[in-house]
């Protein structure tokens, strides 16, 4: 069976773009990816795409061209982009098609996400009484983790400080001004122990990727990258997830643990081979917990790693080199593909001021979201 290569990447800057719909941002990213691969829309044999709040991806054909291409909509919450990518990967692996596109985009209103208890399989009182907020879940999960493993608020602030620093080096990021650790710690408390600077915000943006059979990749680019592993998991029994009126006393692993393990096994490489990683940082605490859940360190080791700068761009394992969700915001349908886009830029050596030094060769992504889903990838050059 053939390997799968990524030969084209495109992005619409993240943040707020008034007057441009989420779909239009998706079209922008798609056109940029086509141009990057030096092909035309008519060359695309299939596409997967989705958004959570900005419409159906397949309607993009009216802008991109009515070629009759099979364009499948993907709707999988925060893993929408990851699921589109995984679907594209499987489609090429199966031999059905040789070249296709995965695209994710979104545009959310300002402020926290509105939650609908009944759509989430919950009773109305849960939302009515003020328990159904993602921000509470993140506060409570890291609160317990800090208690169990000795992580401090200082570490939470270091994660956010790094995100803003990296975002300041990324022209496509939303938040491009550094924020000091002190300002982060003294920022308005949103859900203890997390201040407003430690949270990402719903936002806008789009990413498109062109994938093809590895054996034809050199037709499109001199620097093909290879998608070596990609896996998706939903929550196992005992995981601590958002919107849970109750939890099992016996704690179990998160969906991330299973997705990470499957991805590494599929790629046939070990954690030591990873040169940089993009890990879901819905808030600072998430990045810290995800470092361990993805197997990059033991629980509790993050405190020293952060104090030592290990996850900075010039550290031992750079994490969220484009500023992550904290600096880019969270357009749900696009976030997972943004991570892959950033890894492609880094592995091409084209990341400019935020370039990870020493020619990184292998990069990892991890996306996580409600109601307990996780998708990971490993890309090599």
């Amino acid at each position: 069976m053939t390997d799968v290569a990524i030969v084209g990447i495109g992005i619409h800057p993240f943040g707020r773009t008034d007057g441009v719909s989420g779909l239009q941002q998706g079209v922008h990213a798609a056109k940029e990816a086509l141009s990057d691969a030096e092909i035309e829309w008519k060359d695309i044999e299939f596409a997967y795409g989705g958004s959570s709040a900005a419409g159906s991806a397949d309607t993009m054909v009216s802008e991109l061209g009515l070629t009759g291409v099979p364009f499948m909509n993907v709707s999988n919450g925060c893993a929408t982009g990851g699921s589109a990518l995984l679907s594209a990967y499987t489609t090429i692996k199966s031999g059905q098609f040789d070249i296709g596109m995965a695209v994710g985009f979104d545009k959310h209103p300002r402020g926290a996400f509105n939650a609908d208890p009944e759509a989430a399989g919950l009773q109305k009182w849960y939302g009515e009484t003020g328990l159904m907020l993602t921000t509470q879940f993140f506060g409570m999960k890291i609160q317990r983790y800090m208690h169990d493993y000795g992580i401090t608020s200082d570490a939470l602030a270091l994660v956010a400080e790094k995100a803003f620093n990296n975002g300041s080096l990324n022209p496509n990021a939303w938040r491009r001004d550094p924020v000091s650790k002190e300002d982060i710690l003294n920022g308005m408390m949103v859900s203890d122990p997390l201040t407003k600077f430690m949270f990402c915000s719903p936002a806008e943006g789009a990413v498109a990727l062109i994938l093809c059979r590895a054996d034809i990749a050199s037709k499109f680019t001199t620097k093909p990258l290879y998608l070596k592993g990609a896996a998706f998991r939903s929550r196992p029994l005992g995981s601590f997830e958002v919107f849970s009126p109750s939890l099992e006393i016996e704690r179990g692993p998160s969906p991330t643990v299973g997705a990470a393990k499957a991805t590494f096994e599929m790629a046939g490489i070990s954690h030591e081979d990873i040169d940089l990683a993009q890990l879901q940082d819905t808030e600072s605490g998430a990045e810290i917990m995800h470092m361990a859940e993805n197997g990059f360190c033991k629980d509790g080791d993050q405190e020293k790693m952060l104090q030592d700068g290990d996850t900075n761009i010039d550290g031992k394992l750079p994490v969220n080199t484009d500023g992550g969700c904290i600096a880019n915001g969270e357009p749900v349908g696009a976030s997972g593909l943004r991570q892959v886009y950033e890894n492609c830029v880094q592995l091409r050596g084209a990341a400019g001021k935020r370039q990870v030094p020493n020619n990184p060769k292998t990069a990892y992504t991890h996306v996580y979201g409600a109601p307990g889903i996780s998708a990971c990838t490993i890309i090599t050059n």
Partner: protein
Amino acid sequence: MSTQKPIADNLFTWPSDSPKLIGSKDTETGRYFFPAKNSNHHEKVELSNKGKLWTWTVQRFLPKTPYIEQVAPEDFKPYAVGYIELPGEIMVESRLVGIDPKELEIGMEMELTIEPFVKNEEGEELLIFAFKPSVN
């Protein structure tokens, strides 16, 4: 005094001198659920009204819909939320009352209380469950 009623049916025993949360137990696996599940292999159970605080946070901004408290953002009073581990049963998510959030500590002993929340259109006071620090 206005009429009071639970915000939802089958959430806690009411009226009662010693109210309890209503959960269910899977008769095949022995696992507890809250709120109770309707299933032919679930039996309704009254959950323990005492437990330990497992984790907590504070809701510091006025939630959007479906939150039903009618209040201006500047008048909103932050409230604490946490999970209470009911020994041998399950952990339930709940508001935490009767304590300054600064005093909250993981592991502290908590007990169930029923609290007035908001009035509905008929003027009835809706009751919710919450946990407060145990007195002894």
